[in-house]
């Protein structure tokens, strides 16, 4: 019963949130005409999402997979769907459709996981795929919203970096589990650092390099930070070596300083972060509006549907956290963050129960990816760190992000199977 009752909050949020919006748009009771019914054209989609989420949970129970992660993810997605419906009603159906597609793809992945898992044995092929996927936008990318991290395929625009993060997770898990003993053996001493031979750490350095390249060329600081961070953390998980942390910190400081000196857009972004009030209506408009949003919301918020988050450009994707903070207040914002923390903790527990090195690393790294991504974008919109364009997993509008997030969730779920040989 517990597994089912966890689905009540997300489905409740979906139904009550959308009902609230409908009633707000049609305040006069009793008059139902064609135009007001048109506002309900999303109902079939909503219904499908609810039914599919029940099916997913049923399958998870039947397969003895974890039954807590999915409800938490659905909770985040529900908050996102409801807030997107409020911010930009025409996007509601699209978001529901993406949610549906993402859940179906997750089921497919869970079903085919034994096959997927085998790829973990070929780290170098994974590394190559990773390189290709990440270099695609750098070479053929289209600029959307200031970042050249999109690939346009006919009617679809895909953000390869969203899927790239799964590949990078697989690569790191595969590579590190294979080489962790070598990597933790200090062979060479460089000052006070213990480093293994260069050929073993070369793949890591190339990932860091790609991350920097993404930042400088695609201007996609969010993904760059995410890739860099996950590489560092997973390396630490595998080796426990603090030397890597030190080298990574030094690396990012040097890279940051160099790009600050060399590239104008990096400089501008850094200055906006340091003092947004110098140009609140120009370069710093977005971050200033975001701060206004959060400040106006205060502790309790303005009430759902009664704030004015529309002043923030791109509010439904990168800045959805600010919109939620404005309307649901600090209370709502912290609850959202708590969802991520719970999700992360549950994922880590799953990792700790896995048997194989590469499974531990995949599950732990995957969970960390979610937390880190939430951390990076929330820090960005609150001016804790320089602003970075990246989605809030499960919550932000966007197909690539939604599908990639659910695929990653599917991977963690598949690793949670108990009582069987992993």
């Amino acid at each position, binding site marked *: 019963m517990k597994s089912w009752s966890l689905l009540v909050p997300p489905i409740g949020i979906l139904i009550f949130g959308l009902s609230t919006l409908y009633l707000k748009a049609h305040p006069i009771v009793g008059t139902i005409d064609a135009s007001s019914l048109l506002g309900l054209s999303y109902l079939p989609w909503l219904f499908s999402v609810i039914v599919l989420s029940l099916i997913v949970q049923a399958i998870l129970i039947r397969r003895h997979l974890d039954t807590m992660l999915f409800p938490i993810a659905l909770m985040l997605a529900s908050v996102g769907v409801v807030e997107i419906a409020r911010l930009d009603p025409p996007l509601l159906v699209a978001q529901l459709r993406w949610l549906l597609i993402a859940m179906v793809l997750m089921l497919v992945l869970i079903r085919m996981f034994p096959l997927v898992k085998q790829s973990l044995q070929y780290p170098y092929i994974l590394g190559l795929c990773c390189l290709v996927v990440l270099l695609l936008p750098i070479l053929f990318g289209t600029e959307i919203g200031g970042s050249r991290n999109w690939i346009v395929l006919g009617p679809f625009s895909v953000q390869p970096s969203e899927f790239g993060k799964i590949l990078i997770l697989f690569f790191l898990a595969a590579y590190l589990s294979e080489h962790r003993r070598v990597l933790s053996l200090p062979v060479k001493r460089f000052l006070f650092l213990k480093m293994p031979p260069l050929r073993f750490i070369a793949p890591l350095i190339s990932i860091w390099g790609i991350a920097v390249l993404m930042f400088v060329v695609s201007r996609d600081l969010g993904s760059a930070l995410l890739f860099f961070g996950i590489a560092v953390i997973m390396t630490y998980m595998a080796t426990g070596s603090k030397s890597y942390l030190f080298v990574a910190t030094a690396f990012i400081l040097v890279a940051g300083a160099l790009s600050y000196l060399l590239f104008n857009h990096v400089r501008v972004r850094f200055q906006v972060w340091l003092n947004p009030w110098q140009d609140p209506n120009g370069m710093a408009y977005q971050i200033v509006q975001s701060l206004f949003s959060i400040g106006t919301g205060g502790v309790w918020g*303005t009430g759902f549907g009664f704030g004015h988050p529309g002043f923030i450009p791109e509010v439904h994707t990168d800045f959805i956290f600010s919109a939620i903070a404005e309307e649901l207040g600090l209370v709502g914002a912290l609850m959202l963050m708590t969802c991520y923390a719970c999700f992360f903790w549950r994922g880590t527990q799953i990792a700790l129960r896995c048997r194989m090195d590469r499974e531990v690393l995949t599950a732990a790294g995957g969970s960390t990816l979610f937390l880190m991504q939430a951390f990076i974008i929330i820090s960005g919109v609150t001016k804790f760190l320089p602003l970075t364009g990246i989605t809030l997993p499960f919550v932000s509008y966007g197909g690539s992000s939604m599908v990639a997030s659910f695929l990653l969730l599917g991977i963690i779920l598949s690793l949670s199977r108990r009582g069987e040989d992993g």
Partner: protein
Amino acid sequence: MADHTLKRYVLQAAAASLVLFALLYVYVAYVAVWQGPKLAQNPLNQRGAAARADITRGTIVDCNGVVLAETQSDGVRHYTMGEVMAPVTGYNGERIGSAGIEGTENRALLGLTEDMSRIGPISQLFQSDRGNDVELTIDSRLQKIAYDELEGHRGAVLVMDAETGAILAMASTPSYDPNQIEAEWKELNAQSDGPLLNRAVQGMYPPGSSIKPMIADAALTDGVTTENERFDCNGILDVGGGFSIHDYNGEVHGQINLRQALIESCNVTFGTLGMRLGDDRLKKAYERFGFTESLMGDVVMERAHLPAFGSLAQGDQAQSAIGQSTLLVTPMQMLLLADAYANNGKVMRPYLVDSVISANGVVLSKALPETWRTVTTPDMASTIDAYMADVVKSGTGRLAATKGVRVTGKTGTAENGQGKDHAWFIGSAELPKQKIVFAIIVEHGGSGGRVAAPIAKRLIQTMLMDT
């Protein structure tokens, strides 16, 4: 197989990640709570104004439900009676501020009880997207007549329910069109005749003879005369220092008592009473009748300007007893003086807002008639009221007499040193449905009895037709 060290490192990394995430919790709370109020009130933050703009301003209606001001579907505020009702409705503009009911009832019209925009969904219990409606005591038909009667002159007309203080009409000319005010703001401010001034409550005038009922009251109350004393009016009163006071148009009233002196508005008699009363008792009389007070709330009244009692020469004492000298009052004060005699010595607090009604029809507040001050005894009130009835029956206020209605009044023809005299008429009328008091001033209109009293008659006739 995974060994122990791997899981230990995973746990370490997870703990570190959570600590970092916890830092973000603290920071977000810092932004929302610590910096929140400052950010919310930042002048660059348009959210407060946007929240206000989301609210449709409530409608202002008169006592019969006639719409006076409403917000159209295109968001434009429309004032149905334009300049006729301008002194009542006032205006509201982002750049020009607000006046009248639009100003004093701003929060009610917006439906704001408190600034509760930051207390979450609960705030919506107190806030709808449509403000409250305000129902006034004004009778728009009477207001129209009052305005039409003044047209072409500068002046003001006030009509009030004698027993409740409900303002039925408040006209002031020249006026302005609140529908156009933002466009005409500059010219209106530059105009020398001050159309933005609500003369009924802000205009300062010498009251002239219309103050005499109060002086009669003071003289009797303080015992400087009796109802039976006979005064000898030869048309000129020597006030010492080589100055004298004359009666209007050089009239000579002969042997008259106080009643006849009021009926004929005898300056010689009242000048004499003024000198007998002297500074202290004159000052006390003006204070007793509330001339030193101002009014706030939905009816805003300026304080009167009184002569420097305590250092007046005899001439100024006599002058301030016939409403001249440096005495300046608003028409509203004279209306309240008239109310004292029409309402047994009690002056009601004037009000314009009868009720505030929420968008879904709930009456949120309803005006309760309230005595502003008790200024004289019922006996004295009825004595003076009888005198004032005679003013209309057989004295200077004859042109206000209306068949079948008991009308009282007092004329005033106030010298002002800037042209023709101001024409005043204050008084009361006992209509079948209610007792009203009125105060009328026509700037530079000439004789109060000939110019202002007929306006009172028109108003009374209008109200008779209504009933």
